[in-house]
C-alpha cells in the first residue's frame, strides 16, 4: 500500500462519514414536518454514501405480496407445545384450532357447528350425547378418523401422566374423566364407542353449554399412532384433522401453516399462512408491503379511524371476547367490606381514561360479559358509574372509614390493563377517596403464583373467553366452587343462579339467569370491570373475508387473497 492509497482510503472514509452525516441531517430535517407522504417515489440518488447501497438488483417486492396465495400475518410464540390438551391460552389455541379439530367447531358468528361429527342426538335427560361421525374425515397423514380415535383422545386428555391443565376445567362433566384423572380407573367410562362412526358421551350433570365446551382444544382428536410412535416431539409436526397442517415452527421466527387438501369442511383457498413471530416494526412493515396484517399504533388511531389517514381504508377493529378488570382479594382487608369495593368502583372515571390515555381504543366495560358474547344485553346489566360523591359516602360508612390499610395493586402477566391506565386509576382513588394505592409490577410467573395461591391483595387482571357462552365468564370466575374463582367470592344467591342456569333448557332463560348473576356480582363489586379490549388491525384490501373477530375460531380457511382488490 503506498502512501497515496492510504491517504485515498482515509479520504474515502471521511467522505463516507460526511455522506452518512448529510443523509441523517437532510432526512431528519425533511422528516420532521411531513413524513406521512407515501414514500414510494424517493429516488435512490444518494448512492455514493457507500454503506447502504449494496443493492444487488433484487428489489423488494412492492406489489408482490398480494400476488401470492400466501397470507403473512403476525403472531407470538405458542406458550406451550402444540398439543391440544396442553393449550390453555388464546395465543397457542389460534394455531391449534387451525391444525386440529374435534366433534364440533365454531363458525365466524360463534355458533356451534358440526366438525367431525356430522350430527348429534341429545337424550331426553340431556345426559347422553350421541355423535354420528362423518365417514370421510382423515388425519393429515391420510388415516381415517373413527370413534376409537375420539375415545383415545378423551382418555389421553384425562390421563394423569399427561398433566393437562384444562381437562378438569372443560371436560369434568363427562362421566369418568375425574376418576381417570385421579388414577382410579384406566378408562373414561362416559365415552363409549358404539360403532366405528358413532360415539356416545355420558355426562354426570345436564349442562347447557357442553357443546360449547367441546369446541375447546382439550376435546380435539389426536392421532394415536403418531403419538405412540413419537411421544416426545410429535408436536413439532402434529397430525390433526384441521384445515391446515404445520409446515414450520421456528421459535422466535415464524410458524407456517400449509393447506390440508383433504379437509372435510371445505378446503381452504390460501395455500399457506405465515405467522411472523419476530414482532419488530409491524406498522412500518405493513406500510412497506411486507405483511398483510399489521397493527395500528395508538397515537395514529384517531386519524386512522376518522378516515384522515392513508391507512384508514385498511383499518379493521377486532372486538375481543375479553374483559380487563381489577380483582380484589375478598378475604383480605380492606376488601372484605363490600362498601370499600363499591367506593373504589365508583371513584374511577373509565370514560375519561379511555378517551385520554387510550385514544378511545377500548370500550368501557359496562358489565362483565363483552357485547359479542351470546346472552349479552346492554339494558339488563350495568356497572357502577363514575360518582365520586357517592364513593366518599360509601367509604365513610364502611368499617375502614379513616383507617384504610396499605393496599398494593400488582400487575404483570395476566392480560390486565397497562400500567399507565393503572396510574390514572391510582390518581383518581387518591384524589376522590384519599386512598393511596401502591402499584407493583411483578414478573409473570410471580403474578400467576400470587393469583393461584391467593396471596395477592389487588391485581389488574384479564379474562379471555374460552368458548362463547356466558358460563365461561360468570360460572368459571364467580361460582364459589370454581377452581378459577381466585378472588374468594362466595354469594349463595349467585351460586344458585349459576347452578340453575347450567341445567336450564330454555336458552333465553339460561342467558337471563346468567345476567342476573352477573348483575349481583357487579353490585357486590366483587371485581371492578374496566374495559372490553379491542385490537386495532390493518388488513390489506386484497385479503378477502377477514373476520372482524377478536376470538379464537378457525378462520383462515375462509380467507382469500384477491390481487385485483389491492
Amino acid at each position, binding site marked *: 500500500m503506498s502512501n497515496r492509497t492510504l491517504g485515498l482510503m482515509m479520504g474515502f472514509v471521511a467522505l463516507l462519514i460526511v455522506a452518512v452525516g448529510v443523509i441523517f441531517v437532510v432526512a431528519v430535517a425533511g422528516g420532521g414536518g411531513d413524513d406521512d407522504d407515501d414514500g414510494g417515489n424517493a429516488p435512490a440518488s444518494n448512492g455514493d454514501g457507500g454503506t447502504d447501497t449494496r443493492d444487488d438488483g433484487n428489489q423488494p417486492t412492492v406489489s408482490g405480496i398480494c400476488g401470492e396465495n400466501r397470507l403473512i400475518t403476525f403472531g407470538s*410464540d405458542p406458550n406451550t407445545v402444540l398439543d391440544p390438551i396442553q393449550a390453555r391460552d388464546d395465543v397457542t389455541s389460534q394455531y391449534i384450532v387451525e391444525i386440529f379439530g374435534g366433534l364440533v367447531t365454531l363458525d365466524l358468528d360463534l355458533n356451534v357447528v358440526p366438525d367431525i361429527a356430522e350430527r348429534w342426538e341429545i337424550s331426553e335427560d340431556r345426559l347422553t350425547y350421541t355423535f354420528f361421525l362423518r365417514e370421510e374425515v382423515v388425519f393429515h397423514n391420510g388415516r381415517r378418523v373413527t370413534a376409537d380415535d375420539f375415545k383415545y383422545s378423551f382418555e389421553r386428555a384425562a390421563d394423569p401422566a399427561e398433566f393437562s*391443565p384444562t381437562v378438569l376445567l372443560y371436560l369434568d362433566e363427562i362421566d369418568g374423566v375425574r376418576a381417570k384423572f385421579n388414577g382410579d380407573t384406566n378408562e373414561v367410562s362416559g365415552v363409549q364407542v358404539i360403532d366405528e362412526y358413532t360415539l356416545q358421551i355420558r355426562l354426570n350433570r345436564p349442562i347447557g353449554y357442553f357443546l360449547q365446551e367441546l369446541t375447546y382444544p382439550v376435546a380435539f382428536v389426536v392421532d394415536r399412532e403418531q403419538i405412540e410412535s413419537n411421544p416426545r416431539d410429535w408436536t413439532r409436526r402434529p397430525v390433526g384433522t384441521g384445515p391446515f397442517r404445520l409446515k414450520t415452527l421456528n421459535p422466535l421466527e415464524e410458524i407456517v401453516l400449509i393447506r390440508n387438501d383433504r379437509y372435510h369442511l371445505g378446503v381452504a383457498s390460501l395455500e399457506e399462512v405465515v405467522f411472523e413471530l419476530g*414482532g419488530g*416494526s409491524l406498522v412500518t412493515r405493513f406500510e412497506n408491503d411486507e405483511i398483510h396484517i399489521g397493527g395500528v399504533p395508538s397515537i395514529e388511531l384517531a386519524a386512522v379511524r376518522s378516515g384522515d389517514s392513508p391507512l384508514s381504508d385498511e383499518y379493521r377493529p377486532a372486538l375481543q371476547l375479553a374483559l380487563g378488570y381489577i380483582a380484589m382479594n375478598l378475604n383480605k382487608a380492606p376488601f372484605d367490606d363490600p362498601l370499600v369495593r363499591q367506593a373504589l368502583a365508583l371513584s374511577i372515571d373509565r370514560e375519561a381514561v379511555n378517551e385520554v390515555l387510550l385514544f378511545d381504543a377500548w370500550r368501557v366495560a359496562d358489565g362483565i360479559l363483552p357485547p359479542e358474547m351470546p346472552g349479552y344485553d346492554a339494558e339488563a346489566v350495568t356497572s357502577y358509574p363514575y360518582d365520586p360523591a357517592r364513593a366518599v359516602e360509601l367509604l365513610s360508612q364502611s368499617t375502614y372509614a379513616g383507617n384504610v390499610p396499605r393496599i398494593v395493586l400488582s400487575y404483570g402477566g*395476566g392480560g390486565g390493563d397497562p400500567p399507565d391506565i393503572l396510574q390514572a386509576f391510582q390518581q383518581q382513588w387518591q384524589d376522590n377517596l384519599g386512598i393511596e394505592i401502591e402499584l407493583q409490577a411483578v*414478573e409473570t410467573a410471580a403474578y400467576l403464583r400470587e*393469583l393461584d395461591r391467593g396471596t395477592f391483595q389487588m391485581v389488574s387482571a384479564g379474562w379471555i373467553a374460552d368458548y362463547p357462552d356466558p358460563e365461561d365468564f360468570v360460572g368459571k370466575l364467580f361460582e364459589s366452587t370454581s377452581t378459577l374463582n381466585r378472588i374468594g367470592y362466595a354469594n349463595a344467591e349467585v351460586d344458585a343462579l349459576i347452578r340453575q342456569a347450567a341445567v336450564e333448557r330454555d336458552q333465553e332463560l339460561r342467558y337471563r339467569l346468567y345476567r342476573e348473576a352477573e348483575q349481583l356480582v357487579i353490585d357486590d363489586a366483587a371485581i371492578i370491570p374496566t374495559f372490553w379490549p379491542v385490537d386495532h388491525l390493518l388488513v390489506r384490501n386484497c385479503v378477502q373475508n377477514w373476520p372482524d373477530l377478536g376470538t379464537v375460531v378457525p378462520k383462515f380457511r375462509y380467507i382469500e387473497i384477491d390481487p385485483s382488490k389491492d
Partner: protein
Amino acid sequence: MGQGLAGYILRRLLWAVPVLFVVSIVVFYMLRLAPGDPVDTLLGQRYDAEVAERLRGKYGYDQPVYIQYVKYMRNVLQGDLGVSTRHQDFSVKEVIVPKIRVSATMGLFALVIVFVLGIPVGVYAALSRGTPVDPLLIGSWLFLDAIPVFVSVIFAQWLFALKLEWVNLGYEGVFHKNIILPVLLISLPGVAGVARLMRASVIQVIGEDYIRTARAKGLRERTVIISHLARNAMLPMVTVIGLTLPGIFAGSLFIELFFGIPGIGRESLDAVRAPDFDVVLALVLFGSTLFVVANVVIDVVYGFIDPRIRVGATRGG
C-alpha cells in the same frame, strides 16, 4: 517454549472450572429463590391446582434446591443441558444453538465493520492532529455513537425501507440483504470507540524513540506508519478485540427486537421472563465459558505480538 505455553494455557483453562462452578451455583439459586417458577407460566391462568403440584413433582421443583442442583449438574456433566419448559419438544441445545448462530454471525459482521472502519479512522485522525480534520472525523463518528438506538432504528427503517425502498425489514436469514441495516445499526455506533482508542494509541507511539529512529534512518513515511507505528499501536486493540468477542455472542437485544431477528438477545429475555430455568443456566454457563476462553486467547495472542509479556506470564503463572 511450546511446552511452557501449552502448560500455561492448560492451567488457565483449569482455572475456569471453579469459576464456572461458582457461577452455576449462584445463578441456579437465584433463579429458584425468585418468586414463581416455570410451572406457573407453563400453566397460565387456566388450570386445576392439582396439575401444578404434579408438574412440580415431574420437574423436581418441589425438592430442596441443593438436590435439584446436584441432579442438574450430573446431567450437565453427561452433556444433557436439560429441557426448555417453554418448548418442551426442543432440548435446550436445540433452543439456543440456532439463536447463537444468528447473533454470532451478525456480531462477527459488525465486529469486522467496527475495526475495519475504526482503525484507519483512528490512525488518520492521529496523523491529522492539529488540523480540523481530526476533531471533525472523530466528532462525526461520536455523533453516530450518541444517537440512541431507538431513534436510529426507527429513523433508519423509515429512510431505507419506506423512503428509499432499498431493504425490507423482515428477517429472512443472516445472509439475506435485509440483515445489512441491522448490522450497520449495531456496528456504526461502535466505530467511534475503536477510532478514539486507536488515535490515542498512535499518538502515544508517535512519540516513541524508535519512530524517531526509523524516520532518522530515512525510511519512507509509508513504511514508518505501517511497519513501525501501526503495528505497535495495534497492541491495545488486541485486548479490545478479544474482549469484544464474547460480546458478539450476546446479541443486541434492541436491534433483535426492532427487526424481529431470532437471536440470542431475544431468547435470553424470553427465557428469563418465563422463567425457563435450564435455558437461562445454559446461556449463563455458555457466556462465562466464552469470557474465560477469550481472556486466555488474548493472553496467548499478546505473547505472539509482544514477547516480553509471554516470558513474564509463563514464569509467573
